């Protein structure tokens, strides 16, 4: 099992496999996102309170979910890379950081767009938005820490340690922000009730989330391929790969 795993995560093997999986993921992602868009924008009825504005949840909620999922994935890869010294896992963690940051940013932007008609302001200090903002800053910190090292091996180790510190801290940040948020809202009912999700509205959301996850998988794999090539540019397998491609052209 361990041997099999080692072989699987060896850079040349991963590079080759990632291509195939990325294509499959991308195809499935596009298909499910298109279906979910049709379901969400055309089939689902307008919300009785929010009208058509609620439809932004089809982007907002999946990005929020992905922003956290990506961090968990990045931290998992960092852990694996630190403990079992898989260099490929460092490459995966490296490419996830900007992807996760973009999903976080998307979540913040769509939240802000949603907030304008609902709350009358571009930025409401809502618990989810606040903790997403902190998450974005932690993603940016991770990227900055990586950039501060000249040597790849050191950058990998330091960034992996930081990602793991984040894993301990993020739940504490998340829950403290939720606690802080409930304090000042007090007993008053929040200005908008959560949209009561019916099945017509719900299935596109679920499908959209799956589509986003597949899309995340596809771009992570593609970016990992690029990262592996750049990291291993002096090795034999990359040089051979370059020679083969030259020969074909």
């Amino acid at each position: 099992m361990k041997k099999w795993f080692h072989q699987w995560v060896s850079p040349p093997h991963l590079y080759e496999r990632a291509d195939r999986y990325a294509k499959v993921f991308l195809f499935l992602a596009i298909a499910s996102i298109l279906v979910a868009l049709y379901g969400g924008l055309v089939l689902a009825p307008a919300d009785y309170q929010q009208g058509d504005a609620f439809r932004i949840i089809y982007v907002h909620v999946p990005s929020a979910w992905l922003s956290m999922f990506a961090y968990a994935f990045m931290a998992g890869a960092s852990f694996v890379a630190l403990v079992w010294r898989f260099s490929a896992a460092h490459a995966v963690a490296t490419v996830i950081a900007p992807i996760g940051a973009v999903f976080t940013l998307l979540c913040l932007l769509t939240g802000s767009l949603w907030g304008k008609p609902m709350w009358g302001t571009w930025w409401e200090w809502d618990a989810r938005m606040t903790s997403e903002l902190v998450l974005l800053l932690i993603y940016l910190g991770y990227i900055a820490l990586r950039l501060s090292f000249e040597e790849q091996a050191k950058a990998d180790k330091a960034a992996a340690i930081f990602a793991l510190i984040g894993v301990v801290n993020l739940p504490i940040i998340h829950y403290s922000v939720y606690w802080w948020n409930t304090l000042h809202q007090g007993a008053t009912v929040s200005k908008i009730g959560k949209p009561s999700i019916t099945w017509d509205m719900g299935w596109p959301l679920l499908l959209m989330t799956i589509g986003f996850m597949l899309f995340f998988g596809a771009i992570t794999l593609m970016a990992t391929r690029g990262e592996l090539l750049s990291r291993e540019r002096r090795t034999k397998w990359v040089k051979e790969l370059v020679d083969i491609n030259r020969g074909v052209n």
Partner: protein
Amino acid sequence: MLLSELKTLYKLEWRQFSRSQGQWLFPVMLFILVIVLFTVGIDPEAHRLQQMAPAVIWCAFLLSLLLALDHMWRDDYQNGVLEQMLLHSESPLQLLLHRVVVRWVLSIVPLLLCLPLAISMLQMPMTIFMPSLLALAAGSFVFWSLGSALSALTLNDRRPALMSLLLLPMAVPIVIFGSRVIKQSAMGESVSGLVLMLVGLSILSLSITPWIMFAGMRLNLD
């Protein structure tokens, strides 16, 4: 042997603190300056000042600590003392942890001495002094120990800002709980639960700090 080593460490730290050419005063000055700048940015009426006070005190306090945190390891990393400590000390881990604690005490005491001043500047009741003091001590320890670990991790980088940018997002829970302590104690409510929460967080941070610190130093000394 360990005991005598620690005694030497305390003496050495004190010598460095007392001979730092007034550097210990810098955090105190920043603490007061942040409060002044905040206040001149609003109409300083009592109720508004009191509303801002918890956040202002906490932000000023933590930002001031950043100034001292920057020197936690950097000087000794640059003059080669840090690697010699790791290699040749009898018990490097205890030594480094003791330095974290000693420097924390030396940094917060001058700031805490200014706390009554800050409380009266922000027109808060003096009854909040004790609860705020406890909360600031516990909360700053979380901040300080995480900061020591992160500054070991970022020794390679010459820009002091990087460590602060990594550390400050992690200060969110500290500021949330800590400000609450000041607010509730001003209203005469009990704050022991919140203070215990901060103490719990400082124990948690103390338990993860040493290995991050060690890993960071080893990495940057390689």
